[in-house]
């Protein structure tokens, strides 16, 4: 057998290693899923908005559960939740949201014979046009995407909690596991692929509707053009992008 000298041995070794590396790169990197990278200009064509039809919600809590599973939300904190409003015949009102309605609502707060009116109100981040949370973030970790979704950069957030204080809707919290701010993202990872946010997907009553506010033909635009709606705490000048159909004055 021919003797291989040291130089040749190293040469063969290097080529073999390089071959395996390059080959495996092609072997594993190629995925079937086509990655659709949107450009900045593409994103500018969108402005994501949300409609909550309080007359349709039945308080089943499917949206809360879907959100928790989809986004791996920490226990006892909520990116979305459902509130229940019950009014009795004396005009007294009681509001509750046990575990954010994660398990729905079990018992009435008044004897059911006394209840004259009741309704459910889902809540989530309003993704305001003028978000106080983005304004107050000292490190720029809270930001607005070109398609007008308010997000948190969890790799950059220091967890000071200033944004939690600034949000008038209590939609933010400090994630106890990561130590950073957390909130609803409109399921940004889903809407970028053309999928509906998990809560919208889960709602059996179409009480939650999302869409592109910039598209005059979108469902959300059409509803806003025909129905009456309200915003939460409009006096604070946050300009929310969650529109509430049949917003009762008791809802804050």
């Amino acid at each position, binding site marked *: 057998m021919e003797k291989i000298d040291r130089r040749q041995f190293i040469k063969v070794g290097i080529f073999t290693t390089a071959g395996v590396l390059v080959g495996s790169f092609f072997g594993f990197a190629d995925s079937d899923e086509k990655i659709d990278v949107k450009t900045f200009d593409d994103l500018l064509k969108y402005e994501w908005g949300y409609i909550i039809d309080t007359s349709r919600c039945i308080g089943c809590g499917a949206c809360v559960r879907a959100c928790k599973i989809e986004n791996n939300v920490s226990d006892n904190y909520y990116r979305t939740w459902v509130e229940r409003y019950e009014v009795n015949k004396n005009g007294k009102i009681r509001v509750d949201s046990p575990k954010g309605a994660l398990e729905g609502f079990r018992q009435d*707060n008044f004897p059911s014979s006394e209840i004259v009116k009741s309704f459910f109100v889902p809540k989530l981040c309003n993704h305001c046009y003028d978000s106080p949370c983005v304004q107050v973030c000292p490190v720029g970790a809270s930001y607005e995407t070109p398609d007008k979704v308010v997000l948190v950069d969890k790799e950059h957030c*220091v967890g000071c909690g200033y944004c*939690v204080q600034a949000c008038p809707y209590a939609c933010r919290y400090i994630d106890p596991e990561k130590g950073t701010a957390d909130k609803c993202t409109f399921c940004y990872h889903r809407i970028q692929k053309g999928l509906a946010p998990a809560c919208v997907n889960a709602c059996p009553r179409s009480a939650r509707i999302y869409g592109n506010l910039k598209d005059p033909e979108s469902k959300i635009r059409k509803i806003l053009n025909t129905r009456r709606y309200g915003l939460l705490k409009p006096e604070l000048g946050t300009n929310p992008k969650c529109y509430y159909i049949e917003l009762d004055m008791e809802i804050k």
Partner: protein
Amino acid sequence: MESLDSFVFPNEVHITWTVMIVLYPYITGMVAGAFIVSSFYHVFGMEKLKPIARFALVSSLAFLLFATVPLLNHLGRPDRAFNIMLTPSFSSAMSGFGFVYAFYMIIVILEVWLSYRVDLIDKYTNSRGISKFIYNIIILGNSNDNEETRRIDKKLVTFFAAFGIPVACILHGYVGFLFGSIKANLWWSTPLMFIIFIFSAIVSGLSVLIFLYQFVHWLRKKKVDQDSLDLMAKWLWGFMIIAVILELMELLSIAYERTERWVVLQQLITGKLKVSYIILQIGVFSIIPFLMLTVTSLIKINLKLKNLLIWLSSGMLLIQVLLMRWNVVIGGQLVSKSMRGFTEYFPGFLDREGLIVSAVIIIIPFILLKLFDGVFPFFEKSENK
């Protein structure tokens, strides 16, 4: 748990800013207050305050060095703390924090160094071995000491003291601004907040100086400088009146306007904050020191009794300011943004942000102050002169 008639949003069950955020304005308040007192002597030439001026300055430094500890302990990601200076987002009031703090720290350190230069050179000349080496580093290898250097040092000290007053007000007023500018919070959102914070800072600064000054002299069995003490007590009396009246006027105007805000806040101060605000902060720890200081300021009484009353009121006002910080920081977060209820908060004893850690954070600056006394003696020198 929430009762039936009260509702808080599900994310409000845990409050975000804990007792650590109570301590931060408390400590910076003492920093700013003590600094301003030292400036009264350096800038405005109030000779009566000379015995306390250096002590005030070094206290300011001791508290300043520890002011960020509660903040770091509170941050969800303290490892990223420097992001605030690396990537500041200037739309946020908080983004200036690192710069204001660092700037103020530089001013205080320079002023301490300049006003102690002569003593440090003295120590350097009289020491040997390692301590000589350390003193040499502290004086930056410059042991020049003559009439001319002293004159320049004094000029610089005056300059930094004068420059430091607005910066101290900014450092602390700015904390008040952080709270006062949060429109989402009914109890915080008022433009008066930063003014109230500045005055309460001066109260806590004067209180801590009077308290320690008397305490240290009592420990060392030395006589206090009565003129200096009387002057400070009178100022404390004046500033505490302004601070308390401002706060009450603020409340009065909200009450008189009778908007929805008052409906909610009324329940807060007569409910959750009844003990800590109405009874303790206003009732016990404002009115009693006010009465005691009124007596010491206006009526001639036995000197021993007078000094005791001054000491007691300074101690009580220290607690009053701490209560005020608690009632602002925690009180504001107890109100649900749903305007329908109030949440609960108790810091716990052994938690990371609990009471024992808080006590340690409060005590450490005092220990540091004791250590500083070895390097920068506060009182003896001035008394000998």
